[in-house]
C-alpha cells in the first residue's frame, strides 16, 4: 500500500471522484474535514455511499474521530457500509482497545465476519511513539500505521521548524516497529500543496527510512507517491 488519499467524508462530489486519482486506498474523513455540526449527516452519507459505490480494487477506509470525541458513533453508523478499515486518530493504549471493541460490536450487529474490519492507528503522540511496539502487539486488527508528525511535535511541545531532522528519531522508530511487526508504515501527510519539491523530497526521505507509503491530502499528490514508493 503506497498511497492513501484523504477525502472529505461529507462532500458527495468528492466521494464520487475519489477513486479517479489512482490511490491504492481512499480514506473518507469524518475527523478534521467535517465540522462538529455535520458529523451526524456525514456518518449517514458514508453509510449509504459505501454501500452504493463500486470502488473496484481501491481500498476503502474511514477516518473516524478520536474515541473520546465520537469515534464510537462513527464506527457504529458509517461502519454499516462495511469499510475495509477504520483509521483511528490519536491512537494509544487506551483508545485502541476501545476502537477494537466498537468494531467487534459493529461486526456482530451487522453479520460481518469477526475480525474482517481492520484498524489503522495514527501514531501522533510522544507516548504512542515511545510505546509503539506494545501498541502494535496489542491488537490483531492493525493492518497498517500512519505517522502524523505535526501532532507529534505539538505533543512534544516544540515548534515545527520544517527541518526533517526534528522528527528523524520518531519517524525511524515508527518505520522500524512496523517492519518488525510485518505491517506497512504510512508516512506523514504533506499539507503545503504549493511546495511540490518539498513534498517529493519528503516522500523520498520517508521511503529511505523504511516507510511503505504516504498519506495524500490531494489527488494531485497520488501519482508522485505511487512513483516514489513503487
Amino acid at each position: 500500500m503506497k498511497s492513501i488519499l484523504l477525502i472529505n467524508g461529507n462532500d458527495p462530489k468528492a466521494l464520487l471522484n475519489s477513486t479517479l486519482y489512482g490511490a491504492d486506498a481512499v480514506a473518507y474523513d469524518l475527523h478534521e474535514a467535517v465540522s462538529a455540526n455535520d458529523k451526524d449527516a456525514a456518518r449517514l452519507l458514508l453509510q449509504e455511499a459505501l454501500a452504493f459505490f463500486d470502488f473496484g480494487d481501491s481500498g476503502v477506509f474511514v477516518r473516524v474521530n478520536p474515541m473520546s470525541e465520537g469515534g464510537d458513533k462513527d464506527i457504529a453508523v458509517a461502519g454499516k457500509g462495511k469499510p475495509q478499515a477504520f483509521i483511528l486518530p490519536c491512537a494509544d493504549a487506551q483508545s485502541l482497545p476501545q476502537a477494537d471493541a466498537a468494531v467487534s460490536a459493529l461486526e456482530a450487529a451487522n453479520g460481518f465476519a469477526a475480525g474482517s474490519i481492520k484498524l489503522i492507528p495514527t501514531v501522533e503522540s510522544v507516548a504512542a511513539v515511545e510505546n509503539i511496539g506494545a501498541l502494535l502487539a496489542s491488537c490483531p486488527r492493525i493492518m497498517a500505521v500512519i505517522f502524523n508528525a505535526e501532532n507529534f511535535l505539538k505533543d512534544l511541545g516544540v515548534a515545527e521548524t520544517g527541518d526533517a531532522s526534528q522528527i528523524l528519531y520518531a519517524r525511524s522508530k515508527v518505520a522500524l516497529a512496523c517492519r518488525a511487526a510485518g505491517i506497512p508504515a504510512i508516512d506523514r501527510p504533506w499539507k503545503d500543496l504549493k511546495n511540490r519539491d518539498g513534498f517529493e523530497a519528503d516522500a523520498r526521505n520517508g521511503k529511505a527510512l523504511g516507510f511503505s507509503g504516504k498519506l495524500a491530502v490531494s489527488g494531485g499528490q497520488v501519482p508522485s507517491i505511487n512513483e516514489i514508493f513503487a
Partner: protein
Amino acid sequence: MKLNKTGEAGAAESGDILVTVAPSEEPGIQIELSGKSVILKQFGRQIRELIQKTAEENGLENARICAKDNGALDCTIKARVRAAIQRAV
C-alpha cells in the same frame, strides 16, 4: 414518528441536495422538489419516489419535505433525508 421541529441536512452545492423536513398538520408526506429543470424533467419522479420511500422507511407520517437538488446521487438523497429527519425529531 412525531417531528418536534424543523430539521435540515445537505447543501446547495454540486452533487448534493439540501433537504428540509418540518412537522405538518396535514396528513401524509408533502414533497416540494426544486432544482435544475433539465434534471427534474428527467429524474424528478424518481427523486420524489426515493424521498417518499426513505421518509416512510424512517417512520415519517405527517411532514413537509422541501428538497433543493443539485445533481445528487441516490445514496446522497437517502442520506440527507435520513439526516434531516433525525434532526427534526
